[in-house]
């Protein structure tokens, strides 16, 4: 009889593609939790007056801010596409193993592409 709970060595597990989408959904979701107060702060400061607007515009031009923005853009894209996949599967579409693997690849590819487009636009 096996002793439970079993603690697996996470570094020796080879996570299948749907597993990556699953854990990245958590990671991006946690980042988007942090993004809410940040977004409200930026909106509040930018709408506080002309000087606040200029300060936010200046801050967002900083390369470090652009990198943080890129992280949040990836988080949103990843969470958005993986969320659509969730909704699709809730409606019993694409729930076979092969289809789930394919849609995982599509989600990872779409969020990577969206992040690249955002990066090209921000750093251009």
């Amino acid at each position, binding site marked *: 009889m096996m002793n439970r709970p079993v603690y697996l060595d996470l570094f020796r597990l080879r996570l299948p593609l749907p597993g990556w989408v699953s854990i990245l959904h*958590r990671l991006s*979701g946690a980042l988007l*939790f942090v993004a*809410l107060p940040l977004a409200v702060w930026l909106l509040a400061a*930018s709408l506080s007056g002309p000087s606040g607007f200029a300060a936010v515009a200046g801050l967002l031009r900083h390369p470090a801010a652009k990198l943080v923005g890129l992280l949040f853009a990836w988080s949103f894209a990843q969470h958005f596409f993986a*969320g659509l996949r*969730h909704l699709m599967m809730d409606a019993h579409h694409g729930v076979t193993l092969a289809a789930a693997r394919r849609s995982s690849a599509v989600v990872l590819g779409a969020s990577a592409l969206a992040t690249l487009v955002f990066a090209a636009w921000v750093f251009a």
Partner: protein
Amino acid sequence: MRLPVGARAGTGSWLVQRASAIVLAILIPLLAGRVLAAMPAEFAAWQALWAPPWVRVAVLLCGVAWAMHAWIGMRDILMDYVPAIALRLVLYLAVGVTLAASVAWLDVVVWRLP
């Protein structure tokens, strides 16, 4: 009395998570697209972008849906990774206060718009 445990205990959260997800999946691209399309370089134009009543309603709706969605998600994450009950309750409180304060602040921002 509502049963605190059982096979159906999570159905409410599941449904709220889907409903808020649909609201967010529509409103965030809509609001972000509006900002990106206009990209005003001056304060007056920036302020005018957020002024229409439907935009204010959409912003607040988005904030509330974001907070509800984040609450359920963060609660699930903390449930899985923080077994120490005292620490987990403190973290629940921190997450809840952060989300509630964010929505209240957003409310103030939208309310103050001319």
